[in-house]
């Protein structure tokens, strides 16, 4: 169809043609390949008894540290971009125990979320809590996967470290990136006690827990203690006293542990904040992402049509003059 010259001088025609061409462009444009930052993470959660301390408050109700740590891990799972992978482990005694290796987070979201929700202090196989050794073990697992480590713990060693010195770290500091997340409040709170059937029966008292690690050689200050005898009472004549039966976040201990192993450290105050800390402390793995950019020319087409009809409605009110 040959267009009359009047049509070609009409702006309405050009706007229509423009809308048509941009839409054709939208249909023909190839997808753009972008890179995005995915992460491979191993989340290890401390399930020892001190994680049952209720020193958080969620919606005005006291919440246990373990519940808050689980909430934080689930929020982290939701915040990870697709193609990231997340594995899960638990820590008690002196080991970290791998439950499953990192799996893709979007495809397996429901299962991983269910696994995080299912974490429970009853999974702990021992009452001890050698946090430093647990972190070292978790680093070894993370290095073998490989993945970056996110370790959530309150840092309370039970029994307390002999002489307060960290055990030697045999790995290479900084080889595995990651973050040590301190869970809990620095104010001491009572630790709930449970019976064999899992019913809460009260709180730990001072003499229920070891207040001092009395295995190995006695500390240097032992001779100054009351009742000290090199053979019969090498740690002094009295039972150790202390506050180990109260749970509090051992921030200094975790800071020195983080410095020893080359991990980052942060305190978990708000469960939603974990994702930002993890982004700052772990390595990104660039993944390619195909992005559809058809929306840009299509939006232009919409703009053209809107202009056409709006302007048509505004200027077209006055009809063209009749031929004389």
């Amino acid at each position, binding site marked *: 169809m040959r267009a009359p010259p009047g049509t070609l001088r009409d702006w309405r025609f050009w706007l229509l043609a423009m809308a048509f061409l941009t839409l054709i462009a939208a*249909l023909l444009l190839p997808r753009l390949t972008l890179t995005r930052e995915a992460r491979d993470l191993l989340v290890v959660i401390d399930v020892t008894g001190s994680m049952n301390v209720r020193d958080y408050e969620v919606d005005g109700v006291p919440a246990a540290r373990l519940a808050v740590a689980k909430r934080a891990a689930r929020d982290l799972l939701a915040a990870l971009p697709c193609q990231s992978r997340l594995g899960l482990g638990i820590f008690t005694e002196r080991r970290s125990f791998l439950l499953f290796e990192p*799996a893709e987070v979007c495809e397996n979201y429901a299962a991983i979320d269910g*696994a995080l929700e299912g974490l429970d202090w009853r999974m702990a196989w021992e009452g001890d809590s050698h946090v430093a050794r647990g972190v070292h073990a978790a680093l070894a697992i993370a290095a073998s996967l490989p993945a970056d480590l996110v370790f959530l713990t309150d840092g309370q060693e039970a029994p307390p470290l002999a002489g307060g010195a960290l055990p030697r770290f045999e790995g290479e500091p900084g080889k595995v990136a990651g973050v040590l997340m301190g869970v809990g409040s620095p104010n001491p709170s009572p630790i709930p006690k449970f019976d064999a059937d899992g019913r809460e029966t009260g709180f730990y008292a001072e003499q229920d827990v070891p207040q001092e690690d009395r295995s190995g050689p006695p500390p240097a200050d032992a001779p100054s203690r009351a009742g000290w005898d090199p053979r019969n009472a090498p740690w002094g004549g009295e039972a150790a006293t202390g506050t180990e039966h109260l749970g509090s976040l051992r921030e200094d201990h975790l800071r020195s542990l983080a410095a020893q192993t080359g991990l980052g450290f942060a305190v978990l105050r708000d469960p939603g904040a974990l994702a930002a800390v993890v982004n700052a402390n772990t390595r990104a793995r660039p993944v390619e992402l195909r992005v559809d950019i058809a929306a840009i020319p299509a939006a232009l087409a919409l703009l053209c049509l809107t202009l056409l009809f709006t302007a048509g409605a505004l200027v077209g009110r006055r009809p063209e003059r009749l031929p004389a």
Partner: protein
Amino acid sequence: MNAAGMAASLTRDWGVDQPWLLLLLALALLPFAATAFVRRGIASTLLVPDDALSKAVSLGLRLAGSVAIATIVLGLAGLHQREQAIVRQGTGAHLVLLLDRSSSMDNSFADRAPSGDQEAKSVVAKRLLVDFIGRRPRDRIAVSAFSTSPMPILPLTDHHDVVRAAINAIDRPGLAFTDVGRGLALALDSFADDANESSRAILLVSDGAALIDRRVQEALRDAVIRTPVHLYWLFLRSRGSKGIFDIPPPGEDTPQANPERHLHLFLQSLGVPYEAFEATSPQAVERAIAEIDRQETRPLTYVERVPRRDFAHAAFAAAAVAIGLLLAAKLGERALTRAMPAAPAGAGHTGAAPMRRAA
């Protein structure tokens, strides 16, 4: 179906990514306020005959403009058909893998540290279980582990990637003890939210057993009455350890001396379909798993996922067609003046209509 029901079924099957963009759908009213054509004055409306065809074409062109705007807006908002879950009938099972993660699993079948051509029991179990679930794509699988304490690892899931990730973790160093009883209680618990009655199975993989507490025994008997399951026990028997089918001499047949045999007797007494496989070598494990694979093929209602389909491009294509129509009509537009070289000859209805629409 009433309007609310239709809206509900529409939003169940269809969705948009950016609902707020749908506000722009109001722009689709613009073509009814203006057209793409030049308004022309005529002396009298009496000059325009009452022509039904012209009216229809006029309305059609306004609709085309409206449709073009509406479809672009829908495309921009990310119109898609949601992921659909289609219920189908097939064969398979809802399966809980109950895996022993005690440290004895890290030894070979000869009960030594694995070396050379001897694989650790956990490595054999891992390899064959990964094969096993690879052959059963329709199963819903949960994973639990037990050692000193029972550990729920994964809830029932259709996504086998993460199940594979959990099986891959079993050759990591294990823990001290073997608390089968609580492990079984946990595995039965995995079916708590599962409505599918007919095809539940638990596959217990372990290389030993331990006494089951009397109270746990009672709890287990209760649990299998509530949730009937098929039980399979794949016993990875190390050299020198007692078998589950050997009957010891009288006087020595105590649960303390023969925990494996007594676990077998206990499982038999539960009153649910149960089968034990004793494997003393990787080949025997393979045969046992093939046998379980063969048996666990009961009819199963399973859900097949149809992934989400994007309709943005289809929407843009529809808009392009509508604009193409408008453009064709625009090219056929003729003025009423005499300056026109010829009458709108050759231009069919598309040409004739715009003239009429001047009215």
